[in-house]
């Protein structure tokens, strides 16, 4: 009997000694947050859209020329490249003042792949068109040209 009660007392002491020696600690939670923005930027050198030499006597249909507009966007973001800034869609020959109307259309926009060096290149192809009639009736000129301003929005 005495042995049993002693064992119980020892057990109680051990339990409390263990409890008392544990270093209590407090804890707190900290939220970690960040927001990745959707952005797009033109990149690289814009290629000119060149029709080359036009021989009005040999035009058999509408003339088209294309150029790639390259850009980078936040991964997964698809931009819209639009024509802004007063383009009249008329090329003018600086020497003679003669003009040739044309139209300009954007193709499918690649979805953004990010901004790292290893991110795949992305672009939209622009197609300029001179109608067959306008090409056939064009007046002679050295260099017909227009500068178009583009804007990229995400």
């Amino acid at each position, binding site marked *: 009997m005495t042995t049993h009660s002693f064992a119980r007392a020892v057990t*109680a002491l051990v339990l409390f000694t263990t409890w*008392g020696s544990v*270093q209590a600690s407090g804890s707190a939670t*900290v*939220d*970690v947050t960040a927001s*990745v923005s959707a952005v797009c930027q033109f990149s690289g050198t814009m290629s000119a859209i060149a029709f080359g030499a036009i021989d009005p006597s040999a035009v058999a249909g509408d003339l088209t020329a294309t150029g790639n507009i390259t850009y980078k966007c936040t991964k997964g973001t698809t931009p819209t490249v639009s024509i802004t800034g007063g383009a009249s869609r008329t090329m003018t020959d600086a020497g003679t003042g003669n003009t040739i109307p044309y139209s300009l259309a954007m193709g499918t926009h690649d979805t953004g792949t990010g*901004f790292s060096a290893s991110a795949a290149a992305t672009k939209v192809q622009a197609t300029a068109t001179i109608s067959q009639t306008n090409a056939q009736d064009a007046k002679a000129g050295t260099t017909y040209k227009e500068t178009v301003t583009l804007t990229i929005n995400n």
Partner: protein
Amino acid sequence: MKSAPALIAGFASLLLAVAAYGQGSPPGGGGPPGGVAGCSFDAGGITGLNFGTLDPSSGTIVTATATLMVGNCGAGRTMSLSIDNGRRGNRTMIRDGGNELIAYSLSAPTFSPGTADGPGIGAYKPATFTGTVMPGAYMDAVAGVYRDLLVVTVTP
């Protein structure tokens, strides 16, 4: 069957143990290191680790600092803080509604310019730590809000 004297003896020993424990470590902290009452955080004094807006086109290293008010324990104690590795165990934020991750790293918490000495019962002092996101971690990230949750522990 146990005899009454044996039960009483056991109960008395148990009471003695409780009494001895209670004297050694008063509630609320302030006792010597090793006592059960530890330091704690002021829940109202915790700021999140908010990296703000990460612009993938910028390619800059982004840092943010979190502050926690910790104390409520006596000057005889040296507070030590540890931070876990977040919800995925690798210190990454995950995009809301997605599974993309952005990795970040953390500095060790410091009490600078103060010390790690306990400020006393009912008093708290600021501890800070800094998080860093490297450009490569977010330049190709999908747009959205990213989150993680850290658990910071103070000992004792």
